[in-house]
């Protein structure tokens, strides 16, 4: 058996990581053509979001998702190929959203 490369293992572990919105009730949206503004009531911060982070938040508004599922759903809506580069991009956006306290890892089940 050929061992997986370390990067591949990391990607696989990350892909199973589940994400959820911090508290949907504390979020208010303003949606324009391609941009979105999001007010986060728990931090008092307003965020201007481009399409992809807004899309990830909207998917998570329906309930927690694992990273692989999020990546696939986002790729479908963006007409993107869900390859390794896309998954890394998704993870980077999720990390940024987590730093903004908009999403968090969770053990909660999907809807």
């Amino acid at each position, binding site marked *: 058996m050929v061992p997986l490369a370390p990067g591949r293992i990391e990607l696989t572990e990350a892909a199973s990581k589940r994400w959820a919105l911090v508290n949907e009730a504390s979020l*208010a949206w*303003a949606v*324009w*053509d391609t*941009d*979105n*503004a999001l*007010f986060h*009531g728990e931090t*008092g911060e*307003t965020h*201007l979001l481009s399409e992809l982070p807004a899309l990830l938040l909207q998917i998570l508004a329906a309930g927690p998702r694992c990273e692989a599922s999020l990546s696939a759903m986002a790729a479908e809506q963006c007409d993107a190929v869900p390859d390794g580069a896309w998954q890394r991009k998704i993870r980077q956006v999720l990390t940024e959203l987590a730093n903004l306290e908009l999403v968090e890892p969770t053990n909660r089940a999907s809807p």
Partner: protein
Amino acid sequence: MTRRQRPANRLPARQRVEYRIGPFLVHLETPIHRIVELVHWCYAETIVRAPTTTPVQFNVRVERGPLHRRWLRPQATFHLEDVSPFDPFPADHAFALLEWGLNWSIAIRAHQYLLLHAAVLERDGRALLLPATPGSGKSTLAAALALRGWRLLSDEFGLVDPHSREIHPLPRPIPLKNQSIEVIRAFSAQAQFGPVFPRTRKGDVAHLRPPGDSLRRQDEPARPAWIVFPRYRAGSPLRRAAMTQSHTFARLSQNSFNYRLLGATGFEALAHLVQSCRCWRAEYSDLKDMVAAMSQLPTAPQ
């Protein structure tokens, strides 16, 4: 005559006046009679002459400075109730001090509104917001528009009602600075200026009296329709470029006095404001060209 008696033809040592500025009632008390004269000149239509049940929002005083400065370079101080937020001004700048003090008072108290730092004018029930950036020429442009048939709602504050989403008037004198005073004098013979206050912290300042129609209609709000970020640049031809709503939203949230304080209420009010307006930035050097351009603004599809 005892020391307490005063001849019948002399004014009382301290004068009091109440006047409306948009939704607010101001009670002013001062021993500096020149201020009261200028308040009557600026706000003649809104002086409260009979008892009213409207609560006073701003109890302000302008006092003479300390005793040792009564004769040598006398000073004046502004007070909102027991708070005196500014260092003393020269006494002959007392009216300018009062006006700046009222700006400060509104900015720290009037949180029933989303407060934007913007001039606002109205035409046919639609409001044009001119948000300020330093050196933008906001006040000069607002003065010129007010002298060309637009109703002046405010030179300093866009008072956005978060519930009705309308913009409330706050008609007050427009403080014009330095060259803008002569620009507006040359622009219109109708311009009525108060005294020039030389060498204030903002340069030479003179107040343009708000038009009587603006004062008389200060209970009539307007629906927001246009947002234009003006920028005066010497020698520049008139240029107007549309702004995205997200960019406009970002700039206005930074321009507001109390956006963060209002939280979700402020967010929703600002988002609706931007949604209901056409948004541009405009650069100009010729005031007449800019005034003409503002009269040709298309309205937003509703």
